[in-house]
Each structure stands twice: as structure tokens, then as C-alpha cells.
């Protein structure tokens, strides 16, 4: 979706009919709109979300009054006012015009009355160049949603000063939902859920009605287990939500404690100790995995030393008795007999004494395969014995390391407990006591959830899934099905195979997105960040800043608002870039499963309160990530470094001239020209007018 122009008609500050054109050129893809505080930058952002989704951002006040106040005041009783936003855009090679409007009337008492509620129309230009109504199976709202789903709105239409929200712990579900929708994961999740759900249920019922008692019994059993699994999954999700909420509460307690005098040293010590605790726990997990790997690779050998010893004894005894190795190869004896001549030159005529003597040697030979096996076994026994010794040494070493870490863990837990007692000591006052008590309970509950309840629920769910799979196999194979039952069995088998394939494709896509988005994030963040942090997206699409501590990536706690804003912007950019990349690939492939898309970035207060270095870098990479960037800025946000970076990428530039009832005026200097920025209204009405900046 690439916007070409927008026409506002008596919408909020924008009196009368006004049109603004956006930059659509691939290289000059940035539109900059300058506006004084209160001139309507947020209203313009909301004009986009209103026309597309009939929705507004949380900071848009009085969203039930969209009409221009002056235009409404000028109405005579009984007159009507039509407020509208029309946007012209391109999507998938087609040009559309969407218009949303509302009509209000001033009644005899001067009261406002809505006469035509919010309505939307959508037209497109057909092959002949005619503009026609976009008809089809979907209404205009649905068609617009298909092009750019509403849940993606926060990623493409946002206020730069509030974007840091995406980097908060609570936003991960929103991010995950956005990524799933934008990059096709949602489609696979839904397909799997629908196939496994209603469709499979219907097929099983059909099998049941065509397979008698056996089918009924299996289906009943399956329904019970399905229900248990559903409960278990819900239980696990609830535990995970609880952990996130508890962590958030703990962080807010920490923030409160941070502000209390006399605790600074203790809190610093605790933060250090907590870091060490995480490192130790990571170390224990690592050693446990090393041990599991070693046992899985060589553990079976520990059970067979007696067998190896017996094999060696058998071979040694054979050697002692002269049975091994054989002096002659079987093939050699056979060649002599066939040639009828011994190597000493003696004649070996069939039936002669010499022939019989040579032939008798055959009983002392073995097949080549047996000889090779004996040689291999003799060599392997020694190797295997050495591997047993090495493996036992390795396991001993890993166990010692793990035990040392466990001891350290106990020590650090005692240290943390001691610190907690000191922080919660009454000598610091009542508030720290209460806060620390609550913090202890939270910590204990988090540990309980993370280390006991969540793993238990996960393991139980896995067992139930295995039972379901077995039952599904049984249902598919119930004998005595009639023709209809057999067809249903075949369909169920096909649905199960397709569901499995969809799940695997989804996993592939998930891994691809996590890797690509993470790399893109790392790249953008690496170029911008001042501190030595790394940006990453974890498995659950949690946006994180991490820091290397002793070779391990540890999460950064307490990142600044500016850092979070940059991280969030980098994420949004990475998301748009990946969607564009997928779109370009799909365009060149007739069989592509994934679609992607072209999505613009529309940002109010794009550079927020960022530091100079951040502004410069954000301004530099922003136009490269999205095919179209529309930014609204105040004069203080449009500073030299931003202008320098963006100048060559600007394809369209506008000033929102604010006419105020006060006798105030000021201008803004852009491209060596002065533009009226704020001016006194000549008719006593406040309004904003778009003025195009001349681009040489």
C-alpha cells in the first residue's frame, strides 16, 4: 500500500477541502510535513487510521467530533456538514480511492446531530482507466483490512514519542501477533487449527457412523483426551502470563526501591548477585546438556565392557591355539587347485596326493569377510575400551563442574537472601519492608512457575498429544468401514498429512523470520547504538537488548526511553523490510506460498526526544527500510542533522500553516525560503492549511 494523496474535507483543524500529495518515488520516498504544536499533526495521523480502519490512536482526543469547529459554527439551523477523508493509494499494481465520511446537522436548537453515520466507499481504476466501485465478496472495510490488517496499524501509523512501548515486556504479544499477521505465520496457524479442529472432528464423526462400536469407542476416548489437552495448554499459557505479570511487578518494585535513600549500595550488590545467579544457572543448564549429550553419544558403551572383554578373550584364545590368523587365504588355495600347480612347482592333478594335501588346507582358512570382521573386531575392541575410559573421565569432569556450580548457586542464593533481609530491614523504614516482602513472594512464585509448574504442564501436554496421535492412527485404521467410511478415513489421512506439512512449513517460516528479523535488527541497532548492547528478537518474538557478560548474552535491564525508542523503530523498520523482501520474491515466483507486502511508515513526531546521534542515524536508515515514509515533525524535531540526512530522500514537503485567533506569527525556514508557520487568523477562526514547500 503506497499512498499518493489525501484530501481532507472539514476534518478537525483542516477547514474546507485540502489535498496533500505524498512522495512515491523509490529513491525520493520521504514526505515531510512540518507543523507547530496544535496544528494537527496527530489529527493527520488519525486521518489515516480513520479512513482505513475507522479507528483512532489513544492520544487522539474527542474522536467523536471530527468536523471542523468553525465550519460547524457557521452552519445555519437545519444545515448539514459533510466531513471526509479521501486517500488515493496503490496496492498490488492497482490504484484505489478510499473515502470515509460522516454527516452532521445543526438542529433548530443549534445542537449537533449525526445524520449519516460513518460510511466508507472504495473505488479502483480498472483496465480501461475508469474508476469503478470495488465490488466482490467483501465490503470496503473488509477489502481495506485485507490490504493492511488493522492489527498492523500500530506498526505503520504511530507516534514516535510513544513507540518505545514496543520494547516493553508486555508488548511481546502485540509484536508476535503483528509478525504473525504481516509475515504469513497467522495463516498457517489458522489453517492448522481449522484442519485439526472442526474439519477433523467432522471426518471422525463420519468414520464413527460408518464403523460401528469400535469407531464410537475410539472417538469417545479421543474427545476426552482432546479436552484434557485443551485444559493443559490453557494452564501453561496462564502460567506464562502470570510470570510476565510478576516480572513486571518485580521491576516496578525495583524502580521504587531505587528511589529510596540508603539502599543504593545494597541494591547495586543485589543486581550484581542476580547477574551472577543467572550466569550460574545458565552454566548448570549448559553442563546438564553436555552431560546428556555425552551419555547419549557414549552411554551405551558403559553397559558392555564385559562383552568386550569376552570378545577379546575368544580372539586371544583362537590366536593361542593357532586358529587365528589363518596362514592362507581361501581364494589362494582355490587358485592353486584350479591351476593344478603348487607354488613349489609340484603337479596338482585332481585326485593326486598333492591335490588332496593342498585341498585339506581349505579347512584352515576362513572367508575374506570373516577375516576382515576378525581384524576389525580386534582393532575396535581397543578403541571402544579407550572410548569408555574417555567417556567416564568426561562425565566425571562434567559432574564435578556441575556440582561446583550447584555449590555456587547455593552460596549466591544465600547471599541474595541475606541482601534481601538487609534491604527489608526496618531500619530503612516501613516502605522497604513491605516492598521487599512482596518482592520475595514474587521471586519465589516466579521460580515455582518457571521451574516446576510450566515444565510439568508442558510435559503433560506432550504426553496427551502422543496419546491423541496414537488414537488418530487407530481411528484411521478401524476395519469394517463401508465405502463411505473408507472415503472419510482417506480424507482424514490426507487432512492429517497436510496439517503436518503446514505445521512444518510454519516452523520453517518462524525460524526464518526470527533469524532474518534478528539480523536486520542487529544490523540497524549496531549502526545506531552508542552502548555496547546487542538487539535481538527471541523465540517468542520478545524484543530485547542484551549485553555480553563472560561470553553469555544477558538481558539489559533498565534501558533508557531513547534506547527503547530506537530499538522499537529498528524493529518496525526490520518488519517492513522483511515484508517487502517477501513481496518482491513472491512477485517473481508463481509458486510462492508467502505473500509479504509493501507497507508505508506514517510517523507523528518521528524523532521524538532522541539524542543528536540517534536522530542522525534514524534519519539515515529510515528511508531505506520502508518503500514510503511520511513523517510529521515540529520545528524542534526537524534539526540540522535530520535535515542533512533526509534532504536527498525527500520527494514531497509541506508546511501545516496554523492560523490562530491570537495575534501571533512566525515563519519557518526551509530550503533557504521562509514559510509562514503560525499566523493570526483574519476571520477569528482557527484553522490549518497545507502549504507545499518548493523542492528544487
Amino acid at each position, binding site marked *: 500500500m503506497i499512498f499518493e494523496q489525501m484530501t481532507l474535507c472539514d476534518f478537525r483543524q483542516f477547514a474546507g477541502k485540502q489535498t496533500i500529495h505524498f512522495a512515491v518515488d523509490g529513491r525520493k520516498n520521504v514526505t515531510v510535513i512540518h507543523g507547530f504544536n496544535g496544528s494537527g499533526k496527530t489529527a493527520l495521523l488519525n486521518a489515516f487510521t480513520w479512513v482505513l480502519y475507522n479507528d483512532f490512536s489513544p492520544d487522539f482526543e474527542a474522536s467523536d467530533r471530527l468536523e471542523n469547529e468553525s465550519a460547524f459554527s457557521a452552519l445555519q439551523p437545519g444545515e448539514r456538514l459533510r466531513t471526509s477523508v479521501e486517500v488515493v493509494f496503490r496496492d498490488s499494481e492497482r490504484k484505489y480511492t478510499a473515502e470515509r465520511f460522516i454527516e452532521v446537522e445543526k438542529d433548530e436548537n443549534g445542537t449537533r446531530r449525526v445524520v449519516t453515520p460513518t460510511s466508507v466507499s472504495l473505488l479502483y481504476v480498472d483496465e480501461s482507466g475508469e474508476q469503478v466501485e470495488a465490488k466482490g465478496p467483501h465490503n470496503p472495510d473488509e477489502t481495506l483490512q485485507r490490504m493492511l490488517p488493522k492489527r498492523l496499524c500500530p506498526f505503520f501509523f504511530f507516534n514516535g514519542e510513544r513507540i518505545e512501548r514496543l520494547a516493553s515486556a508486555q508488548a511481546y504479544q502485540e509484536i508476535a501477533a503483528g509478525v504473525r499477521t504481516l509475515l504469513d505465520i497467522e495463516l498457517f496457524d489458522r489453517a492448522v487449527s*481449522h484442519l485439526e479442529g472442526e474439519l477433523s472432528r467432522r471426518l471422525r464423526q463420519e468414520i464413527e457412523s460408518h464403523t460401528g462400536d469400535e469407531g464410537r469407542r475410539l472417538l469417545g476416548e479421543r474427545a476426552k483426551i482432546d479436552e484434557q489437552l485443551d485444559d493443559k495448554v490453557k494452564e501453561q499459557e496462564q502460567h506464562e502470563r502470570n510470570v510476565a505479570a510478576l516480572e513486571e511487578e518485580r521491576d516496578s518494585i525495583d524502580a521504587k526501591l531505587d528511589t529510596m535513600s540508603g539502599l543504593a549500595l545494597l541494591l547495586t550488590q543485589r543486581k550484581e548477585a542476580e547477574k551472577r545467579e543467572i550466569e550460574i544457572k545458565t552454566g548448570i543448564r549448559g553442563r546438564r546438556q553436555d552431560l546428556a549429550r555425552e551419555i547419549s553419544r557414549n552411554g551405551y558403551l558403559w553397559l558392555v565392557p564385559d562383552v568386550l572383554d569376552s570378545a577379546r578373550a575368544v580372539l586371544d584364545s583362537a590366536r593361542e591355539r593357532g586358529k587365528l590368523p589363518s596362514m592362507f587365504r581361501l581364494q589362494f588355495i582355490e587358485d592353486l587347485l584350479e591351476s593344478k600347480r603348487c607354488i613349489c612347482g609340484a603337479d596338482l592333478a585332481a585326485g593326486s596326493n598333492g591335490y588332496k594335501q593342498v585341498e585339506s588346507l581349505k579347512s584352515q582358512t576362513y572367508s575374506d569377510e570373516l577375516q576382515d570382521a576378525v581384524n576389525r573386531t580386534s582393532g575396535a575392541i581397543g578403541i571402544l575400551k579407550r572410548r569408555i575410559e574417555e567417556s567416564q573421565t568426561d562425565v566425571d569432569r562434567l559432574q564435578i563442574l556441575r556440582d561446583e556450580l550447584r555449590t555456587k548457586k547455593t552460596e549466591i542464593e544465600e547471599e541474595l537472601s541475606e541482601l534481601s533481609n538487609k534491604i527489608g530491614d526496618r531500619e530503612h523504614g516501613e516502605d522497604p519492608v513491605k516492598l521487599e516482602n512482596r518482592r520475595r513472594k514474587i521471586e519465589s512464585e516466579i521460580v515455582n512457575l518457571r521451574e516446576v509448574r510450566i515444565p510439568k504442564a508442558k510435559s503433560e501436554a506432550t504426553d496427551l498429544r502422543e496419546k491423541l496421535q496414537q488414537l488418530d492412527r487407530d481411528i484411521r485404521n478401524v476395519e469394517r468401514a463401508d465405502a463411505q467410511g473408507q472415503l472419510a478415513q482417506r480424507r482424514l489421512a490426507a487432512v492429517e498429512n497436510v496439517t503436518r506439512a503446514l505445521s512444518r512449513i510454519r516452523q*520453517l517460516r518462524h*525460524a526464518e523470520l526470527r533469524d532474518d528479523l534478528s539480523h536486520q535488527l542487529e544490523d540497524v541497532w549496531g549502526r545506531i547504538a552508542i552502548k555496547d548492547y546487542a538487539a535481538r528478537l527471541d523465540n517468542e518474538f520478545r524484543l530485547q537488548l542484551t549485553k555480553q557478560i563472560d561470553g553469555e548474552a544477558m538481558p539489559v535491564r533498565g534501558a533508557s526511553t531513547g534506547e527503547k525508542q530506537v530499538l522499537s523503530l529498528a524493529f518496525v523498520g526490520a518488519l517492513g523490510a522483511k515484508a517487502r523482501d517477501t513481496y518482491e520474491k513472491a512477485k517473481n515466483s508463481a509458486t510462492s506460498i508467502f505473500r509479504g507486502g509493501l507497507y508505508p511508515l506514517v510517523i507523528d513526531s518521528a524523532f521524538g526526544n532522541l539524542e543528536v546521534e540517534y536522530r542522525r542515524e534514524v534519519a539515515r536508515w529510515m528511508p531505506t527500510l520502508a518503500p514510503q515514509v511520511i513523517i510529521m515533525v515540529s520545528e524542534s524535531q526537524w534539526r540540522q542533522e535530520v535535515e542533512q540526512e533526509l534532504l536527498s530522500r525527500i520527494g514531497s514537503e509541506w508546511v501545516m500553516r496554523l492560523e490562530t485567533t491570537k495575534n501571533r506569527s512566525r515563519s519557518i525556514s526551509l530550503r533557504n525560503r521562509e514559510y509562514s508557520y503560525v499566523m493570526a487568523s483574519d476571520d477569528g477562526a482557527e484553522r490549518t492549511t497545507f502549504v507545499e514547500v518548493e523542492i528544487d
Partner: protein
Amino acid sequence: MSDTESERQLKLHNILKELDEEERDLLSKVIKAEQQKLHMKQPRNINEDLWKVLVETIR
């Protein structure tokens, strides 16, 4: 170490290769049906759409 583009394509190809022709057809029709209603929070009648696709594909 993440996969290269060609490794990803190969993995996808292998997954599809394990299905027979009818099942591949079903998979592609299921994706199309889901795409049609992806914008809806609660896709109306999607189960009926999928049932039709199934009955038409696996006869």
C-alpha cells in the same frame, strides 16, 4: 547459523515432496481459502469453505 535461501527452498521442497499429488493440491487450496479470510478476526464460514475444498479434492 541460519539457513541460506537455497537451503530454505530445499527444506520447503522436501516437505511438499512428501505429500502425494492430491494432498499437495489440498494444501494449496487450504492456503488460498485461509488467505481469503485472513483479515477477519473470526473468519466466518471458514470451516464450510475448507470442507468444500476437501470434498472436491479427495474423492
